Each structure stands twice: as structure tokens, then as C-alpha cells.
């Protein structure tokens, strides 16, 4: 029973990952070298942010939305500013809407893959590199990618680094 309880979270994550439900995308994916850019279609990807529990942060995307073709790789940045008055470890949790499109939005690099450490008053731009899988349904024209920023200081990993790949200190 006890073991089963502890198995539930990884089990649940596995089911969500395999089925793409819950609007979640997990981890980095490698780019398929044979992937073709489908120029006949253009899809709008909107970015939005949420702060969990009124976390004292400034957290926003540098662009509100971009347009891209399926198969095309794009990099966008999110600006974060730590106004909490203390050093903090944060974790961004992505959510993609509509849920059916979640499994086609593929990230090759994301600040949400690891915890981020921000010193008191630190300002950074954090990158997301992603593309849309050309297999995405024809009726999807707009996708929203939202990040909720959580205070993860209580859950900080021992190996959390101050500088992560692609992050720009401002």
C-alpha cells in the first residue's frame, strides 16, 4: 500500500506522457533530421504566464505570440525578475491548450526542464526552443503555452545550478 502510494506520481506522469492528456509535455525531445517544414500552414502560438500564490516575481514572455509553420524551430524568451527579497528556487510548470495539441508541441530546450535559482533581485531572460510536429491536426490554428511559476525552494534539488544553459543574465 505504502509503495503503491509512492508509485502513483511516476505512474500518473507516465500515463499523462504516453497519452498526452492533462495538457502536459515532459522533457526534451531530439529533432528528427528528416522533419519537413510544412509551409502551407501557419499556426499561432500564444504565450502566457501565471504566478502561483502571488509569488513576488515579474514573469512574462518577451513576445505575446508568434506565428510559425509546423516543423519550423523557434526560440522565445521569458523574462523573470525576483522581487521576493530572498534567494529562491523556482519551477515553471507548462500547460498547453487545447490539450489535444499538447503532444505536438515539442521542446528541445526549456527553462522548465530544471529548477531555476534566482538570487535576490536577479533579472533573467530564459529560453524555450520548440517546434510543432508536422503531424498536428489540421483544425488547430492557435495554441496557448502557459507557464505557472512555483516557489520550489522547499523542494530544491541538490544539483540545482545557478546558471542554466541559454539563460541570459540582465
Amino acid at each position, binding site marked *: 500500500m505504502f509503495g503503491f*502510494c509512492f508509485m502513483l*506520481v511516476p505512474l500518473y506522469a507516465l500515463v499523462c506522457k504516453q497519452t498526452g492528456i*492533462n495538457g502536459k509535455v515532459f522533457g526534451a525531445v531530439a529533432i528528427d533530421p528528416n522533419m519537413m517544414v510544412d509551409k502551407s500552414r501557419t499556426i499561432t502560438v500564444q504565450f502566457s504566464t501565471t504566478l502561483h500564490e502571488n509569488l513576488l516575481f515579474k514573469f512574462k514572455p518577451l513576445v505575446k505570440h508568434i506565428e510559425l509553420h509546423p516543423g519550423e524551430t523557434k526560440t522565445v524568451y521569458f523574462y523573470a525578475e525576483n522581487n521576493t527579497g530572498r534567494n529562491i528556487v523556482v*519551477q515553471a510548470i507548462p500547460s498547453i491548450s487545447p490539450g489535444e495539441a499538447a503532444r505536438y508541441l515539442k521542446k528541445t530546450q526549456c527553462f522548465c526542464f530544471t529548477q531555476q535559482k534566482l538570487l535576490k533581485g536577479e533579472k533573467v531572460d530564459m529560453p524555450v526552443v520548440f517546434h510543432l510536429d508536422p503531424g498536428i491536426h489540421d483544425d488547430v490554428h492557435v495554441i496557448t503555452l502557459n507557464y505557472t511559476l*512555483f516557489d520550489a525552494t522547499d523542494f530544491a534539488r541538490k544539483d540545482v545550478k545557478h546558471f542554466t544553459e541559454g539563460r541570459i543574465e540582465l
Partner: protein
Amino acid sequence: MSGMPQKGFKRWIFTTNHKDIGTLYLVLSLIMFIVAGVMALIIRGELFQPGQRLITPEFFNQMTTLHGLIMVFGVIMPAMTGLANWLVPLMIGAPDMALPRLNNWSFWILPFAFGLLISTLILPGPAPDFGWTFYAPLSTTYAPPSTDFMIFAIHMMGLSSIMGALNIIVTIFNLRAPGMTWMKMPIFVWSWLITAFLLLAVMPVLAGCVTMMLMDRHFGTSFFNAAGGGDPVLFQHVFWFFGHPEVYILILPAFGVISEIIPAFSRKKLFGYRFMVWATVIIALLSFVVWMHHMFTTGAPVAAQLFFMYTTMLVAVPTGIKVFNWVATMWRGSLTFETPMLFAIAFVVMFTISGFTGIMLSLVPDDYQYRDSYFVVAHFHYALVSGSIFAIMAAVYHWLPKWTGYYYNERLGQWHFWLTTISMNITFLPMHFLGLAGMPRRIPDYPLQFTDFNQICTIGAFIFGLAQLIFVYVVYKATKGGKKADAQVWEGARGLEWTLPSPPPYHTFETPPAVD
């Protein structure tokens, strides 16, 4: 003398007799019914008029939480277990429950569990205030310290239920009188056997669920916290994987009770016995594959919404079989309308209403409108008040002459029935319309346009509450005296329990009866 009860209160503490323990369960259930009923009246009192009138919103939330928890775990479940303790050995011709000491322990955990739960009202700080479903993160990150008391109370209730269920299963498997084959078993015993398996399957899930809450609250895990890699929606999956079978645990023994009472007062055999048994089995199996209908608006994918919508609608088929069989049992029977039969007929009618609103709620697009509104409140009160509670009352009236040896006062019983049924509808029928008009559940205040219907609900609730005092009085009087009952009690009643004198001796069926 060995085998006879000890004197005074020691009899009740040390008893291993199934009749004594059945009585203890039923008395605990009645006390909790009054406690949680008073909470309901506090809720309805606050909702008599818009604005903050009697209590603070914080206390209102504590009342809704404790009312729900106590009514489910403290009233309906102990009452059903009490009926099982009294009736299962008598119905199958067993001398007692198979594990009598375990039986004593199963009961005596409960007063402590509810003492712990209710003590949160007296202790400093608020009592649990997040609704009976205690969703994370309301019950983890934002919960008051008293939540830990609730968690341990639920652990104890779970232990009690698991041991009680085990005992019932072992008794039914091993202690049936010679000649009582599976398909000769009384339908009440069948219903409880299936319910006991449901309890064994899901109470550990609930225990796991509250344990995970405890870990999240105190030991730095993050099962339900996204910041640490968990997910609050996981809580709802785990809770409702327990919760949906749980509501069938509350209603299946009620089906069994009704299936005993309607044939007795129709003076006919139960129509479609085999179908009744299999319908119960199928309802129990389906209960494990419908839990996500409680979570249609949590961002579930379309495929899951469709699957759970269809499985939920499928529950209507075996339930419909039951309702039709009850009606067919009454068809061309020689009906008389004593109090137990009146409660049983009211059960059939009003439980069916809750079935219909249940089908409405199962439809995904409609559920988006109804969810978390008073429509849901009306739906499950029709299922649990006019369903489970009515069945318990029907059972008490039906078997009370057997238990005590005296008939209850039929005239007062009829008064109790009519006041209860009419006030029950005055209380809960308007809630359907409040819900459709958009009144959310679990709010201490509401917009002006809902005032009239809320006042009707409140008046009905107070009549209902007062009517239950008649019930307490009738039961008390019947234990003290009245018209003597013979062994048969009811002309049309069939089953081994009616071959015993009323009241039955302390020990019964020490030599198993012969079943032809």
C-alpha cells in the same frame, strides 16, 4: 454464567455478540445523525436569508465539511454495518459473526474516530473547512492544523470498515446453514456481500489518499504539489477512485433492504431474484470505471470524457432492472401500507428521481452547467436521504418488532413517514431549480433572486429535523414496551429470522437450521 451478557456498561464494552454490536452500531449512527443533522440545520439557518446572518463564512465551511463527513462515515455506513451485524447471521442461520472479537474492535474504534473528528470544533483554530471531498491543495497547503485530526479519524474509520467488511465476507462464506446455496441466500445478504468486497477494494485507496495528504503536509513530499513535480489533479483521481465505489457502498445495502421489505408487504416473492443479484454485481463492477464523471471540467481529454460518460450512463441499466423488479414485485400483490412499506415505496420513487438527475449529470456538456451547483446537492441528497436514509428507516421499522419483541406505534410511525417524506421534498426539490438557475454549492451567501427558494428549503429542513424526533421517540418506546410481536411479526415476511421468537434469545442458531 458463561455465554450470557455481563452486567451494566461492561456488557457493551466487552460484548462479542452480533446482536449487541449491531445495536451499538445503530445507536452510534442515530447519535451521529442528530449531530450532523444539527449541522445541516445551522447551514440551512444561515441560508434562510442572503447576507451574513447567523454564522461566519469560515464556520459555514466547517459545517458543510463536517456535515458531509459525518453523514457519510458516521451515519449511513455504521447504520448499514449495524443492520448487517443484526441480520446477516439471523438470515443465513449462523450462530454469530465469524470473527466476534474483531467485530467488537471494528465497532469500538468508531466512537474514538468521531470523537477525534468532532473535537476539531472545540480545539483552538478552525475545524476542517474544505468540503467533505477535501480536495488538495485546500486540504494540504491551505488547510488548518486540525486537518491532521481528520486524517487520523479517517484512518480509523477505514480500519473499522475494512475489518467489518472482512468479518461479513467470512461469515457469509463459511457460516451459511446447510442447504443454503448461493442462490438461496436472502437478497439483503447478497447485497452486503458485494458491498463488503467494494469496501475491501476502496477503503485502502482512501487510506492511501489521506496518507499522501499527511506526507505533503508534514514530510516534504509533493504528491499533490506541482512545484515539487506532483499534481493536484492526482488527488481528485485517487479520491474519486475511492469516492464513486463509496457511494455505491452507501446505496447497495439499501437496495438489499428494499428488496426484502417490498416482497413482505406485497405478499409475493421478489420478482427476478437472479436478475437482482446480477444487477448488484454489475453495478459494483461498473462503479470502478466511472470515477472521472466527477472531474469532467478538470481538463480531461475528450476520449476520457466520452468513455466515462458512456460507462456512467450504463449504470442506469442494472439500476433500472432493480427499479422495474421492485415495481413488478408489487404488481398484483396484496399490498398493505405499514410504515416500512411506505418508506420502501417512497424509496423507489425518490431514488429513481435521483437516478434521473444522475443521468442528466452524466452528460458531459450538461455537466459543464450543473457541476458544483445546487443541482448536484439536490441529486445526491435525493440519493442519500430518500435513498440510503429512507432504507435504513424502513429497515428499522421492519425489524424493530423482531429485535425488541414489541411493535412500534404504527400511528406515530405513519406520522413520521409522511412528515419526513413531505419535508424531504420541500427541502431538496427546490434545490434542483436553484442549481439550474446558477446557485453554486458550498456558499454561505447568495444573490437576492435565490431567496424565495432558499427559504422554502430551510423551512422544509426544520420540519424534517423535528420529524426525526418522532422517530427517536417511536424507537425508544418500542424498546420499552407496546403490542407484543409474535415470531412471524409481518404476515408476508419470509426468511430464517422470522422463525425465531421476538425478541430472539441472546444466542441463536447454535445448531444450524435446515434449509430446504
